[in-house]
C-alpha cells in the first residue's frame, strides 16, 4: 500500500507539488492525470525515494520512507521512469540480468527468462538495446520494472509510444498485477487509458484537484444537457420542448436540450410528462455525461484560474 501524506516539494522558490495526500490500496490502480509540469514525475520520484519531500511523508506498506529505509523499500518498488533508460550496448537479456543482480534476486537467470517470456521478448533477448524500436525499449523497461515482482508499482507514462496492441498487453499485465495484490500508481496523459485501467483517477496540478472513480468524476461535472430519444423524427416534438427554458438541438436522431445553468433536474420530470402527454413514444431520457477529458480540462482550467487570481492578489 502506498500512502502520501501532505507531500510538498519545493525547488528553490518554485512549488512543484503542494500538500498532496492520497493512498493507493492493495489491488488498486490509481492514475495520475495532469498537464506538463503538474508535478506528476516529482510525486512519483518522491514515492520511489529518489528525492525527498520538502514536507509531508511517504509510507510504503506501513513503513515510512526515510533515508534509513529508502534502500530496503526500493526493493519493494518497481519504478518505471519516463525514459526507458536501457544500456544501449547491452543486449535485452544483459540489461535484465544486471537489474536481477541489483535487486538481489536469488536465481537471476530464472527471473530473466520469466520476464522475457512474460513480455514476449525471448526472440529478442540477444538484440542490443540500441537496435530496439521505441515500443520494444519500453517493453524491456517494463519487464525490468516488474522482474523482481514488487508489491508496489510506480509507472511514469507506461504506454507512451506503444502501439495499440502492446498497449493492450501492458494493460492486461497491469490488471494481472492488480489481481495479484499490487498497489499501482500510473502517471499518464492518456485519459482513455486512465479510464479503462484505473480504479481511481487523481487530477494533479501541483495540488491534488480531485481523486475519485472515473464515473464519479464525470458526474461531478454537469453539462446541463439532457439527451432525449423518441421513436420517429425528433423534430415532431420540438413544439412541446419549446415550452421549457432550454435550447433544443436535433443531432443524429437525438434531441439534445441544453438547460445551461438552469434547472435540468427540476424540469426533467415535467418534460417527460409533457412528451408522453403529447403522444411521443419516449425511448430514452438521460443527462449528458461528460467525457473524462471534459472533467479534466474543467478542473485544470479552474486550478489555473485560481493560481492566476492568487498571483494577482499577492501582487496587489
Amino acid at each position, binding site marked *: 500500500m502506498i500512502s502520501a501524506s501532505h507531500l510538498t516539494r519545493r525547488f528553490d522558490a518554485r512549488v512543484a507539488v503542494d500538500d498532496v495526500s492520497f493512498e493507493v490500496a492493495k489491488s488498486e490502480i490509481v492514475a495520475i492525470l495532469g498537464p506538463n509540469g503538474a508535478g506528476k514525475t516529482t510525486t512519483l520520484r518522491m514515492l520511489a525515494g529518489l528525492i525527498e519531500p520538502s514536507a509531508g511523508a511517504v509510507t510504503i506498506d506501513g513503513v515510512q520512507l526515510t533515508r534509513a529505509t529508502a534502500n530496503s523499500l526500493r*526493493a519493494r518498488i518497481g519504478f518505471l521512469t519516463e525514459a526507458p533508460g536501457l544500456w544501449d550496448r547491452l543486449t535485452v537479456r544483459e540489461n535484465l540480468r544486471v537489474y536481477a543482480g541489483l535487486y538481489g534476486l536469488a536465481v537471476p537467470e530464472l527471473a530473466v527468462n520469466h520476464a522475457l517470456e512474460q513480455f514476449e521478448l525471448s526472440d529478442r533477448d540477444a538484440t542490443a538495446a540500441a537496435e530496439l524500436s521505441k515500443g520494444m525499449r519500453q517493453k524491456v523497461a517494463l519487464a525490468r520494472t516488474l522482474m523482481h515482482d514488487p508489491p508496489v508499482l510506480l509507472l511514469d507514462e507506461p504506454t507512451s509510444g506503444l502501439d495499440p496492441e502492446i498497449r493492450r498487453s501492458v494493460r492486461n499485465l497491469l490488471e494481472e498485477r492488480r489481481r495479484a495484490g499490487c498497489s499501482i500508481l500510473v502517471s499518464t496523459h492518456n485519459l482513455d487509458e486512465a479510464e479503462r485501467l484505473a480504479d481511481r483517477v487523481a487530477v494533479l496540478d501541483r495540488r491534488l484537484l480531485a481523486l475519485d472513480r472515473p464515473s464519479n468524476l464525470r458526474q461531478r461535472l454537469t453539462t446541463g444537457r439532457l439527451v432525449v430519444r423518441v421513436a420517429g423524427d425528433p423534430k415532431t416534438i420540438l413544439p412541446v420542448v419549446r415550452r421549457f427554458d432550454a435550447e433544443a438541438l436535433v443531432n443524429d436522431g437525438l434531441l439534445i436540450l441544453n438547460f445551461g445553468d438552469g434547472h435540468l433536474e427540476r424540469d426533467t420530470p415535467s418534460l417527460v410528462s409533457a412528451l408522453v402527454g403529447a403522444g411521443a413514444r419516449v425511448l430514452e431520457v438521460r443527462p449528458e455525461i461528460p467525457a473524462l477529458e471534459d472533467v479534466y480540462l474543467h478542473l485544470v482550467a479552474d486550478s489555473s484560474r485560481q493560481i492566476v487570481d492568487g498571483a494577482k492578489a499577492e501582487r496587489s
Partner: protein
Amino acid sequence: MRRIRALIGKELVDLLRNRAALVPVVVVTLVSLIMPFMIIFVIPRLSGQTLARDPDLARVSRVVGAHGSLAADGQIQYFLFQQFLTLFLMTPITGAMALASHSIVGEKQARTLEPLLATPITTVELLIAKVLGAVLPTLGISLVGLAVYFGGIAAFAAPGVSRAMVSARTLLLITVVGPGAALVALQAAIVISSRVNDARTAQQFGVLLIIPLIGLLVAQFSGSLWLSATALGFIGLGLFGVWILLTLVSAALFQRESILTKWK
C-alpha cells in the same frame, strides 16, 4: 556485494562492446612498455655507449643500494627497470581517467541513471562498482603489459637483473601501490563525474589529476625518489586508506536529487 558485482559486470560488458574506449589505456601501456627498452637497450646500442659510461646515471643508480651480483651496467639497468616499473604501473591510469570521469555523467546523459538509482543500490555501492569498473580493465591491461615487461627483462637484461627484480619492493609495487594509486585517481575522477553536469567538463577536470603523476615521474628520474619496500608498503596502505576516505567523501558529495532534477 551482489549489487556491486552486477554493476561491475555491466561496466565490463559495456567496455567489451566499446573497445575503442580502451584504446588510450592500451596505447599508454604500449608506450610505457617500449620506452624503457628503447632507453636501456636500443639507444646505447645505436650510440655505441654503454649505460655505465654515463657518470650521472651511474651516480643516481646508486640509490638502489649495492647489488653484489650485478655488474655496473646491470646495476643501472636494475635502477631504470625499477623506476620504469612505477611509471608503467601509473601511466595506464591516465588512459582510464576518461572512463572514470564519464561514468556518472555518462549514465545521466544516457538517461540510465534514474532507473539505476531506483534500485536498492546504495551510493557507496554505486561508486565502488563504478571505480572498479574502470580499475579492473586497466589493471588487466597493465598485468598483460607487466608479463611482457618481465619477459623482456629476462630476455634482454644483463645477467642477474631479472633475479634482482623479483623482490618484495617489486611485489609491493605491483600488488599494492599500483592498484592503490589507480583506485585513488579514478575515484577522484568519479567524484568529479558526479559533481559536474556534462562529460566534457568532467574530462577537463580529470586531466588535472594527471599532474601528480607527472611530478612523480620527474622525481623518479632525477634520482631523488627511491622508496624502500617498507616505505612502499606504507604508501600502499596509505593509498587504500585514502581511497576508502575518498569513497566516503564522494558518497557524501553525491547528490542524487541534484543529479536527477537539475542536470539536463
